[in-house]
């Protein structure tokens, strides 16, 4: 009974994201690594990324809207500005104080519910390793087993 998946009743009624939407969202996720020169191998994350999208919608149905509109918004932004400038705007042009409450613009919605969340996921899946540590919040570092390497940086090593 514990293992039953948490699903919002409205989410059960929704159709799945289209492959085109998922591909656009995946490109945003890939771009996280490009923006910060992460050295992890992103292609291995595809399945977990798609599961992540499903889980977010399952818990909060409004996420389907964020994903569908965010993909359209980013596609248009890339068409207008080109890929690199578009992702610079999405990832780097942030207000000094992080906004809260209802998003005021489509850009803000995409930054908060796509870009920022994809950053957390990307770091947790392995992107953090570019910054010197071997474990990180959300990463499955492994167990503490006698005779095997400690799953985090250890004192004096």
């Amino acid at each position, binding site marked *: 009974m514990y293992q039953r998946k948490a699903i919002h009743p409205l989410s059960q009624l929704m159709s799945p994201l289209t492959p085109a939407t998922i591909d656009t969202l995946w490109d945003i996720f890939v771009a996280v690594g490009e923006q910060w020169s992460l050295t992890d191998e992103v292609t291995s994350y595809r399945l977990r990324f798609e599961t992540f999208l499903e889980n977010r919608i399952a818990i909060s149905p409004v996420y389907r809207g964020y994903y569908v509109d965010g993909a359209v918004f980013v596609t248009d932004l890339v068409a207008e500005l080109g890929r690199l400038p578009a992702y610079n705007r999405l990832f780097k042009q942030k207000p000094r104080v992080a906004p809260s409450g209802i998003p005021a613009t489509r850009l803000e919605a995409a930054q908060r519910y796509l870009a920022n969340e994809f950053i957390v996921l990307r770091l947790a899946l392995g992107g953090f390793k570019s910054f010197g540590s071997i474990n990180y919040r959300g*990463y499955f570092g492994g167990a*503490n087993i006698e005779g095997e390497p400690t799953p985090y940086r250890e*004192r004096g090593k």
Partner: protein
Amino acid sequence: MKVGTVIIGSGVAATAVAQTLLKADSQASVLILEAGVRVKTKDYGLWEHYLLTRQAPYEQYTDLPYTTRDIKGENKIAGAADVTLNGARVFAYGGSTLHWGGWSFRLKPEDFYLKTNTGNGIDWPFDYDDLERFYCDAESHLAISGDSADPLLPRSRAYPFRKFPFTAMDGVIADAMEQANILYSHMPIARRGVPVHSSPAAPAQPGASTEPSRHAPCQTTGTCKYCPFGARYAACNYLDDLTEWNEWPGLSVRLGAVVDRIIIDRKRKVKGVTFWDRETGDLHDVEADRIIVAAGAIESAKLLLRSISTDWPSGLGNGYDLVGRYLVTHPYFIFETKFPANPKRLQAEMDFPTLVSRHFDSRAEQERGKFLLVAPPDAISFNLAEALQKGHSRQKVEELLVGDANRVRLHGMIEVFGQAGNRVKNILNDYNRIGLPMTQVEYTRDDRAFEERMAEVQSKVVPIFAAMGANLTEKPTISWRADHAASVCRMSKKETEGVVDADLRVHGIDNLYVISNAVFPNIGAVNPTLTLTALALRLGEHLSSGGGA
């Protein structure tokens, strides 16, 4: 309806007692009544949500903040000082083990002699040596990873799982403590490990876990407040095991059952409880041969207080007006200052501490209030995700990581002593969202004396910061949140000094027991859960061996 034992509450105390009773008698009839509902554990989507937002699914089942001018909250603070209930406890299946940190300390021998050593409070009716074997059992029940070679306390069995080595970040603090001549140890933590292989040629240490478990070992995910694997002990997972994996037909758990009062038969005997069903609103009576109140410190005292009769006009066991009194908790302090530089690129890799210092949790400090120091998992403040989310460039992120922009922190808890005037009561005409009467907290403290004590604490931690090249001048932030609320039904030899006896039986009543932090005469400087578990296992053994009703 008639059962052998009713247990009120479904946290660690209830679980440990129930398991002990049922292991001794597989046909025992045990009914667990829990006011709260089930929270999904080990759900991957909820875990991802926690990863992104730090919002765990059980947070909605804690007390609301106190009412203010603009906000209708819950409970009431009636004393001069604010002891915060919001966030301190969880009303749900599994109780506060849903949110606990898992720090699992034994009390020290001197803690059992507070009155003898300091003149404060009362002594425990037994001592460390009497409780030691139950501490070992409790460490097994909670699946503790710890340092079995730690000379700090005498122990007869090894921890079930090996200690977690110090993190690189904690190494900085360990080095500083060594320079300051302050002792430190590995944090004993309720994170299941991997059983060791035992063979005739190389037998495992007594106590070390050699058996596989249905519960997964810790995978160091850094998300302990909502473990995706259930590696951190949560009583609900264990209660599910008790009901689903054993041939114990007499065990049942009823959720959403809000116990209104204990039904009193005569002066020395109780005969059942009245509870109401949260879904239907219907009242039900359950008769029982024995009642065990395991509803957390505050709710346990409140239930006794609102269970009245002509023999007990001010509440069960309250003939000497002691129920609800002597409330204590741990003030939790955080010292923090600028960290000069971080060339080792240290950042949080875990979500639980690996280093603790009980140097000042000592007999020498007992009279003034012992204290504990902990290196938090984010001792150095750099937050990688935040840096990226702010839109900083890679170069800027590197500067933030290694430069002088970070803070360094040391956490701790300090012992304060119970006062008769510090108490909890029911607000009988006002109910919280769970359906329980709201709580009135009356708490007064000597702010000047406490500030003087904290200045002494600060003088003792300044050398640690200095050894790290950090200059600590700021006062600590201090939380008086009631996570470790205790002593409101304290244990005593004499009924004039406390509410329950050494066997946790309410003085003057033959078949009523309390097992929660409420029964601690004092809580020393450490988290109480391991000691609570040891007491629960001891109670279970006492009852199973024919002691008591």
